[in-house]
């Protein structure tokens, strides 16, 4: 892979922790993502063929019955896999994991074979079947930092790489290292419950890297072995045998 950067510079490795207990399923992340990344509205005709483009979506699941009924909202974007199934199948190397761990999509290389979309276990890749347009007043809110994808191009969540690039350029102009709290994707910025945490796994002594390392984070579809860099945090109730041994534990009434 082409990388002419100096080997001495330490590049961050971006990742995201999604707190399932904090997420209320309000879809602010999905809306913010759509606005930030110029995501086309494909319309009802396309939607009938599962042709909507949604880099960030909320997957809702129901669990339990009666008073144990629970709704779980799970925001799902591109999981930014370390071992991404989409990458080796691309015949033109239009998608690869860059030096900062972001699985990037290079639009100008993409020839639209759609192999990557078929190989993605998370259905996080979306194909532009047509040239989509924005109805009259909406084109003024397009983000000038993000290119408009044309027909025949695959697209997906990029961890808002235009924001990462902008922050890195700003740091470079000011001749200082990048601070990891300097950039975050639109979804994390817009989340009112702060359920989406964005940060650098390799940051020494950082809160995010400590959370990433020490809390038991779950991955989506662990059996496919993709090692995603988007992971989910969930408060897990301890088993009943443990609870019984702890008198007056706060978790006891939850499970009882």
């Amino acid at each position, binding site marked *: 892979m082409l990388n002419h950067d100096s080997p001495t510079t330490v590049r961050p490795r971006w990742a995201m922790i999604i707190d399932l207990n904090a997420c209320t399923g309000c879809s602010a992340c999905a809306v913010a993502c759509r606005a930030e990344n110029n995501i086309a509205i494909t319309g009802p005709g396309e939607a009938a063929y599962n042709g909507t483009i949604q880099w960030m979506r909320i997957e809702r699941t129901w669990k339990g019955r009666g008073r144990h009924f629970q709704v779980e909202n799970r925001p799902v974007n591109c999981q930014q896999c370390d071992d991404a199934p989409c990458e080796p199948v691309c015949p033109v190397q239009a998608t690869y994991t*860059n030096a900062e761990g972001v699985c990037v999509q*290079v639009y100008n*290389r993409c020839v639209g074979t759609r192999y990557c979309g078929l190989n993605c276990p998370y259905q996080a890749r979306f194909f532009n079947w047509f040239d989509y347009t924005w109805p009259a007043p909406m084109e003024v809110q397009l983000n000038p930092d993000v290119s408009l*994808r044309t027909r025949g191009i695959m697209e997906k969540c990029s961890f808002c790489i235009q924001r990462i690039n902008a922050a890195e350029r700003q740091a470079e102009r000011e001749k200082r290292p990048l601070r990891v709290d300097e950039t975050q994707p639109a979804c994390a910025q817009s989340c009112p419950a702060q359920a989406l945490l964005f940060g650098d796994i390799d940051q020494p002594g950082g809160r995010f890297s400590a959370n990433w390392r020490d809390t038991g984070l779950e991955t989506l579809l662990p059996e496919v072995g993709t090692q995603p860099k988007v992971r989910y945090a969930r408060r897990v109730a301890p088993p009943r045998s443990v609870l019984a041994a702890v008198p007056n534990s706060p978790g006891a009434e939850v499970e009882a």
Partner: protein
Amino acid sequence: MLKSIRRWKYLLLGLLLAGLGTAWPRLTHPTPAQPLAFPHALHLRAGLHCTDCHRYAAESASAGLPSVRECALCHARLRTQTPLVRKALAYAQRGIEIPWRRVYRYPASAHLRFPHNMHIAAGFACSTCHGDMRGVTTARLWKPLNMGVCITCHRQYGAKTECQNCHD
């Protein structure tokens, strides 16, 4: 006799290829005719600097094209009677912009962003890509805009060559 013909043949072929090579950027990206023959040379000789008119080059991704109202700021007093200035002032009075045609441009399929500010912060002069404008009226494509030109310079100066650095 036969040998000399063969040698001439190769010389001619070489000349043809060399000519095509130099003419290629002009053939594929012809310099468009502008609505007004703006004399860059005159303005630079008068002591103006590039960023006096293309004023966002140092701060922003795009260098910026001055509005015709900015032309009118100076030319309300200066050289108001020359034909070119009168043409520009007519645009200003009608309240419409001069329909300049872009010279340095990329196809939309390149999905490319060129940040002027980063290149100026790195210490490059405008003339590195745009040529010496002191002898030029309207802008012409001085450097062929293809990825080879970009990448060669990025490698030479140790800049990033990741795809997403420019194509995002």
